[in-house]
């Protein structure tokens, strides 16, 4: 056990910022990497999204198993958000409309205001924007600390948090995060910008194709 631990070569931390791997048509793998020596060979260990457990708009438990054999797009929002959230949801709806019939695709929207955004609220909210069930798009709530943990460096690596000075009382990123079936982050896109969302919509089929 101890040996195994020591086999990690720590300190080699690489942050892939944007499209790496020029020449290959595969999407980059984002985040910190660690390198592990196995039988004299160096293996790369990629950053992965940790296990989690939340509840969605239909009171269903949503955890890492929900996304087994699926790629998905994640984001953070809150229902009473006075700034970028409605635009993000308008853009996410474009993605939803395009890919909702693909059984290997899903969307995961985390509220960062679980005290206000209860299951009942999220149900109402999602229906009002035109998402009538939880088959593809999960709007999740849960324990606040756990939600913020998902945004942190241990998870999706985007800023989320409470801030009395920010409009609506929360700061959060407008990022859409593309995650593969191994729960590795494969892209960040500005969910408030149509052009970036267009790029995401062309990357989704590329990522799906990696599994064909």
């Amino acid at each position: 056990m101890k040996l195994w631990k020591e086999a990690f070569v720590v300190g080699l931390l690489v942050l892939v910022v944007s499209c790496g791997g020029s020449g290959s048509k595969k999407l980059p793998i984002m985040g910190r990497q660690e390198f592990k020596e196995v039988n004299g060979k160096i293996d790369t260990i990629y950053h992965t999204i940790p296990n989690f457990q939340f509840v969605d708009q239909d009171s269903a438990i949503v955890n890492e198993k929900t996304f087994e054999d699926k790629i998905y797009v994640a984001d953070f929002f809150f229902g009473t958000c006075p700034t970028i959230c409605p635009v993000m949801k308008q853009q996410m709806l474009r993605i939803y409309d395009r890919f909702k019939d693909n059984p290997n695709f899903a969307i995961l929207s985390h509220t960062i205001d679980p005290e206000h955004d209860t299951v009942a609220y999220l149900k109402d909210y999602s229906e009002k924007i035109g998402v009538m069930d939880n088959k593809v798009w999960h709007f999740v709530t849960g324990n606040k600390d756990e939600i913020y943990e998902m945004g942190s460096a241990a998870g999706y690596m985007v800023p989320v948090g409470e801030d009395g000075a920010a409009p609506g009382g929360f700061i959060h990123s407008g990022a859409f995060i593309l995650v593969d079936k191994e729960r590795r982050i494969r892209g960040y896109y500005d969910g408030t910008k149509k052009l970036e969302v267009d790029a995401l919509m062309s990357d989704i089929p590329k990522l799906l194709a990696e599994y064909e």
Partner: protein
Amino acid sequence: MALLIACLLSACGGAKSENEGVQDRLNTKELKYFTNGKRLYTQYCNNCHMDNGEGLGRLIPPLAESDYLMEDLGRAAKIMKYGQKGPIAVNGTEYNQPMPANPQLTPLEILQILAYVSNTWGNEADIMTLPEVQEALKEQ
């Protein structure tokens, strides 16, 4: 070449038809209000009511061809300044999601935003005067 021009034209087409005839309808001063209003709209309203005033599902009502907006611009001025809570019906659909207040907006800025939203996306209305907007903001 012709194709390129056609593409360029169609790319600008949205903006042109959206403000159809506004140049003919408004005088120079009103057009200035309209232009400033468009900039303020982008800053204060666009995130919710969207680029083309279409709103978002049954969550955020449209401003484009909104009967609720167009039947009472004074009321719209108050909504912009003081926010809006409780159910309202826009084009026959009920909405019930609070809109936050914008206490920092001056009467002139409200006038300009109104000049824009009530004269674009198919909307057409007379431009209010500054005293009219001030009066509307006073009423309870």
